[in-house]
């Protein structure tokens, strides 16, 4: 087995067969057969013709995808780029001035803009160079005699893992999620539109693997862990077993084992809920047996627009969600953006350390109007369902108090609006900063519930960036400090009568289900595909075992010991 460490872009664990993507490279294609130059007028006409054809093709694609597709805004931008009058002018000037063919002139102009954007300091604008290349390839396709082969796209088999140097947004948009199980690329920028779409489509994706990908050949069996950014080439049985139940191959079996009912341990009902990013996830979620949504991220609702969605738009979305959820609890996290996940129409200044920067509730407090709009929409939708409001990135008491005050302001303002609304929506907080963890007893007096955001909590506590390959091994959920911290949070919450759920990736780790039960965790919130496995783990844990395992674990002094102990008792 070979393990290649890349950067996880879109989470999920899948197995499949490699397919080396021989589609067009993202770099500007072209040159090749240089065509004879006719007259400058004819060349300009040829260019205009190619643009028209590319526009038609793109519009066809947009019609097929439909207006609700998450890629629509990105494609709208591409449509404007294709029809950019400055581009047409530059190409026409070049053709006339140097007697170039349409293709040569366009390649030169394209190169100019690509270099211009690549040289920009702003990482967002830099990433737009990829959009320009994508636009260029659309036009070049019609300037060259031989169109690009497209049969490759149709011939993918189910369970294909695409291996590519890089992918363009268009490539990813066209991928059929029924057959493409995962994506691995050599290079890529995490703000690239291609990856934003991959995440939206729920395709586990890993980038930044570099030349290590060269050792992979077509049809090689492999497994991806998109969350951890790990590529396993010819995974061993042990590795597969460790991840068992997460992979698509074993998924069907596990679903059969655990019917979609609530599970209990020691007689205590443990709801296993889902993390969700949008409406389209919902059918999937219930199919996997979720007993509610433990974390509904609302970033996607905002990212799929070209401006902030207003109260009516949000209300409609949330109430639809409520109707589909049939009375199951819905935990909706207020807008959680930051330097690493900015909104296109609300760009945030680049920060040297966005994870310690301007994000989550910190941004909300500067823009109370945005927060009000979202809270009002939630309170109105709560007439139709069991909503709970979850606040991201809480580190201080003041932040919680500010948010609660905003909720009362929203209630007052709704009272005079004439809309129906629910005023008793619980307000809980993410515990994802060590600061919040250390004052959990104080926060518990004024919050209605806690949700453990372990991804950030672990990286903040251990001071290890998961994206940094030099230190990622220090990011370790088995570290004894993490167990002490979580124990203390849960104990303090329980002392105040609060319930605690866990929505980070740690909750889905099959090795830690038992000790988490020992800590008295009240609910799990997982990616839908992980639900059957964890339900199964909860149900089959014999009475008394969880407490014993936890007691032993808490005596251990390093992560490796914890991990091997848990492996031993799990197998």
């Amino acid at each position, binding site marked *: 087995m070979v393990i290649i460490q890349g950067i996880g872009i879109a989470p999920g664990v899948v197995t499949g067969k490699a397919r080396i993507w021989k589609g067009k490279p993202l770099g500007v294609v072209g040159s090749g057969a240089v065509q004879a130059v006719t007259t400058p007028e004819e060349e300009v006409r040829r260019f205009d013709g190619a643009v028209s054809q590319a526009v038609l093709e793109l519009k066809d694609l947009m019609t097929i995808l439909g207006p609700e597709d998450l890629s629509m805004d990105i494609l709208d931008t591409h449509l404007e780029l294709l029809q950019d009058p400055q581009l047409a002018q530059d190409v026409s000037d070049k053709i006339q001035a140097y007697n170039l063919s349409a293709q040569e002139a366009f390649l030169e102009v394209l190169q100019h803009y690509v270099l211009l954007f690549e040289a920009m300091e702003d990482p967002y604008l830099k990433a737009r160079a990829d959009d320009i290349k994508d636009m260029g390839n659309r036009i070049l396709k019609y300037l060259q005699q031989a169109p690009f082969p497209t049969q490759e796209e149709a011939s993918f088999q189910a369970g294909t893992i695409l291996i590519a140097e890089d992918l363009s947004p268009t490539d990813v948009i066209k991928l059929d999620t029924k057959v493409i199980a995962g994506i691995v690329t050599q290079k890529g920028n995490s703000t690239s539109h291609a990856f934003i779409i991959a995440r939206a489509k729920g395709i586990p994706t890993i980038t930044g693997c570099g030349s290590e990908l060269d050792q992979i050949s077509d049809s090689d069996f492999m497994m991806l862990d998109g969350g951890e950014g790990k590529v396993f080439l010819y995974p061993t049985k042990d590795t597969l077993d460790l991840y068992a139940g997460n992979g698509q191959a074993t998924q069907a079996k596990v679903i059969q084992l655990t019917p979609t009912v609530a599970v209990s341990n020691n007689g205590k009902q443990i709801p296993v809920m889902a993390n969700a990013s949008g409406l389209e996830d919902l059918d999937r979620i219930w199919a996997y047996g979720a007993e509610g949504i433990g974390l509904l991220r609302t970033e996607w609702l905002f990212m799929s627009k070209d401006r902030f969605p207003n109260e009516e738009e949000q209300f409609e979305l949330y109430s639809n969600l409520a109707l589909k959820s049939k009375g199951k609890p819905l935990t909706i996290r207020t807008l959680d953006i930051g330097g690493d996940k900015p909104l*296109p129409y609300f760009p945030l200044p680049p920060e040297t350390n966005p994870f310690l920067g301007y994000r989550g509730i910190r941004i909300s407090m500067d823009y109370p109007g945005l927060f009000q709009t979202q809270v009002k929409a939630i309170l109105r939708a709560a007439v139709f369902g069991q909503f709970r409001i979850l606040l991201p990135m809480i580190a201080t008491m003041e932040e919680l108090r500010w948010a609660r005050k905003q909720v009362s302001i929203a209630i007052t303002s709704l009272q005079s609006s004439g809309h129906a609304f629910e005023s008793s929506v619980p307000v809980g907080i993410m515990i994802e900063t060590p600061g919040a963890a250390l004052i959990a007893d104080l926060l518990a007096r004024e919050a209605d519930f806690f949700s453990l955001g372990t991804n950030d909590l672990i990286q903040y506590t251990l001071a290890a960036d998961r994206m940094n390959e030099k230190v990622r091994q220090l990011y370790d959920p088995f570290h004894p400090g993490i167990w002490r911290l979580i124990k203390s949070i849960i104990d303090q919450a329980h002392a105040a009568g609060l319930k605690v759920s866990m929505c980070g990736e740690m909750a889905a780790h099959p090795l830690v289900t038992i000790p988490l039960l020992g800590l008295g965790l009240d609910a799990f919130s997982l990616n839908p595909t992980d639900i059957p496995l964890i339900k199964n783990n909860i149900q089959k844990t014999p009475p008394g075992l969880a407490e014993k395992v936890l007691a032993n674990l808490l005596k251990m002094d390093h992560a490796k010991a914890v991990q091997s102990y848990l492996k031993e008792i799990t197998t």
Partner: protein
Amino acid sequence: MITKVYTLQLPDGIHARPATALIRLVKQYKSEVRIQKGERTVLVNSMLNILGLMPRKGDILKFNIVGEDESETAEALDEFFTQMNH
């Protein structure tokens, strides 16, 4: 000609989607609209040019609007920037 001056409030300027929205807005009118930032002036019909201006927070953007429906165009721009800057 109508001239409108806005101070850009968005923390990191105008990016692809707002630029797309701006181009489409201006397309609905007959007037020609130019943005001036410092010494540079570009027509509001080109994504490449607008992004190339790199309009950032705090930038003063001067819009020159010329055409038979310039007052309607100016009004629409006002509304656009009020929304953007909320």
